[in-house]
């Protein structure tokens, strides 16, 4: 009973997007219209940590939490790339994760999108040139959108995903 009353006292905590960011609101509306055709506003996301410092992961898990609540846009994180439509890749791709990343990409049924999250995924960041790093994500698999930042905020990641959806091929 205590739990239930606490739930009701707290109320919905999901934030609307900051009003000062009309661009996102616009993007959401626009993408909503477009993505409805292909992914029907239902997007399965598979997160792949290709060697990140877990900074990006913390931000991504913020995306799933009640404040950002990505589920309201129909995004949900799935347990297997077979169920996924979009791969969210973080970190510079280490040598150990090169093959797994490629395998994950292969395992994902098309049509599929790839969003690389964080500076490391784009440029390898401070790990650039390390003997343990195989390269940035786009050197291993085709990437649709990069989300810059170290780490990027959940809102940025969301924007990146929405941008990728905007670029998605449209179903007839």
């Amino acid at each position, binding site marked *: 009973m205590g739990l239930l009353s606490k739930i009701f006292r707290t109320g919905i905590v999901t934030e609307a997007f900051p009003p000062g960011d009309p661009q996102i609101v616009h993007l959401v509306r626009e993408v909503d219209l477009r993505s409805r055709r292909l992914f029907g506003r239902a997007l399965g996301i598979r997160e*792949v940590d290709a060697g990140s410092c877990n900074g990006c992961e913390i931000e991504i898990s913020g995306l799933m939490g009640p404040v950002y609540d990505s589920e309201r846009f129909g995004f949900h994180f799935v347990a*297997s*790339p*077979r169920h996924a439509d979009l791969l969210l890749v973080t970190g510079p791709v280490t040598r150990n*994760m090169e*093959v*797994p*990343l490629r*395998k*994950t990409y*292969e*395992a994902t*049924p*098309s049509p599929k999108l790839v969003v690389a999250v964080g500076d490391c995924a784009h440029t390898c960041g401070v790990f650039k040139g390390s003997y343990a790093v195989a390269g940035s994500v786009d050197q291993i698999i085709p990437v649709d959108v990069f989300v810059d930042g170290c780490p990027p905020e959940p809102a940025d990641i969301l924007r990146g995903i929405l941008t990728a959806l905007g670029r998605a091929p449209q179903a007839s």
Partner: protein
Amino acid sequence: MIFLLMVAGYLFGALAALLFARGWVARWLTAAGAIIGGACAVTLAVAEVFGFDIGSFQIIVVLARRPWWLQGGVIQDPAQPLSAVFLGVVGAIAIPAALYSIGYTRAWEGRRSLRMPGAMLNLFLLSMSLVPLAENILWFVLFWEGMAVTSYLLVMTEAEEPETVHAGNWYLGMTQFGLGFILAAFFLLLPPDGSGDFTALAKHAATLSPGLKSLVFVLALIGFGSKAGLVPLHVWLPSAHPAAPSHVSALMSGVMIKLGVYGVLLFGLRLLGGGPAWWGGLVLTLGAVSALLGVLYALMEHDLKRLLAYHSIENIGIIFIGVGAGMMFLSYDLPALAVLGFVGGLYHTINHACFKGLLFLGAGSVLHATHTRNMEEMGGLIKRMPRTALFFLVGAAAISALPPLNGFVSEWVVFQALLGGASIPQREVAVLMPIAVAMLALASGLAAACFVKAFGITFLGIARSHEAEQAREAPVSMQVAMAALALACVVLGAAAYAMVPALGRVVAGLAGLPPASAVTVSWSLRVPLSAPGAVGQISPLPILLGLALLLVAIPIGLWLSRASRALRVSDTWGCGRIAQTPRMQYTAAAFAEPLRRIFAALYRPTEDVSIDFHPESRYFVQSIAYRAHIIPWFERYLYDPVIDRVIAWAARVRAIQSGSLHAYLTYLVAALVIMLGLLMLWGS
């Protein structure tokens, strides 16, 4: 005429095996004899059960009556429909088993002669066919022993394996133990004039005191229960059945143990004419316990054929649940429900013969292809043996009581009989029924789990050994045999409309059950299957057709709705691991692990894990050996003490063992004198 042809067929097969011994001629002729015999047996049984007049039984009576000491002959006139059911079961499995043996024994060429196994197979079939037809003690016991001896010799086919010898010893011991009880039961029933005729026995039994009748029944239940494999008399079964060649396993598991059921019905209904409620209660309880323990031990088995043998114990349990419920209802004068119980038991007898025969033949094909019975070395066989896999899948679904196959329909009838148990006036007895329902439901759920394991580990996934990788599809004759039985599983399920009333007629008239007209079901798609006393209705045929229709309609629907048809083949998803090896798969032991832990109170599992570390570092493992054992309760705490006692006693008796022929002759004479003396005392 047909009866004679049946006998002649089996004898011909036996003779052919003895004469030719090897080569394709021997294989084909041996099988042909058995197939002719089986076909005749089925014809006789169908004619009798469904009431076609082929006028054959009368002939045999005349033939068999000739010698004075037979007193009544082999077959009663008219034959008992109950016997006909069991005769039919023998014949129905004999045909595919014989067909199967053509391909199966081909692998013996050059290694093993067909002389003994072929001849014994036919004689085994002959004696099994004649057991239910015997109408007096002498013939019955003769055929019963014939069946035991021939099957023992068949079990010993691969006598070079020590395991086989061990299994054979157990089998021989238990079967003779059972025979002792059967003989005792018969002799207690023997009328004063010494006529061993069953009709005379039944007449004499009516005059016996209730206590003596109960004693006879219990003796018969022990005797026939040991043949049927009722817990705790089942210990021989899981070792003897797998040791035999697979087509013989199919016959032993599918048919021979059913004659134990026949024996119980013969005594309980025909000879003793029903009895107090506790007889039925005892049978029901033993059945429920066997059903549950059978499947629980099956779950722990990784030897495919042993697993199937444990499932025979489970299914015998289900049959006895039906029979026991029927006997209980009979004693409470609830004839309609009693018929339902017996019909459920008999129907399951027939169905189990089909799917267990099928499964053993399937296991035989796997053994034939991979040369192992250990499931942990199989895997991926569905790609190399697609047809065997399909047939085995049908059998697995049938034994798991999945609709619309036959196993479901007969279990449904048994369930309905038990649900009717609420009408038993004595409530403290009636509570047995829900308990039996719960145990039966648990057993059937666990059976489904067990067959997901059996089929999944054996046929699905990736091959776990070189042999499994090299497996090849079974020869055509084996495939045809399995296909026939798989078809039978489907047809027997859909044919419930004909089977239930026919079986109702079979038990009608036995021990005061109502006449056949009380059980009627007309043949139509719309008319559901329901029997008097049952509380529910089902229609197996529309279920079958409906599922088939849906299976066709869904892809068409997908096609019409223009769903994507793109398909790509890729690796199995394994969280991005580099390469997949067979060892990454779930094993049979792993599959059963949750249940092993849940039923730990029964299994008392002990695990022993030995890890071989790399000499340089404990972080690198070179090999891990994992062994899990469960306590074999019955062997350890029931049989071992008895055996030890017997051996100790025998050691004491050994004192008179001198090795001198004269001493032995003296013993003989002494025994003779004592016997004569006793006889004289009796006479005076």
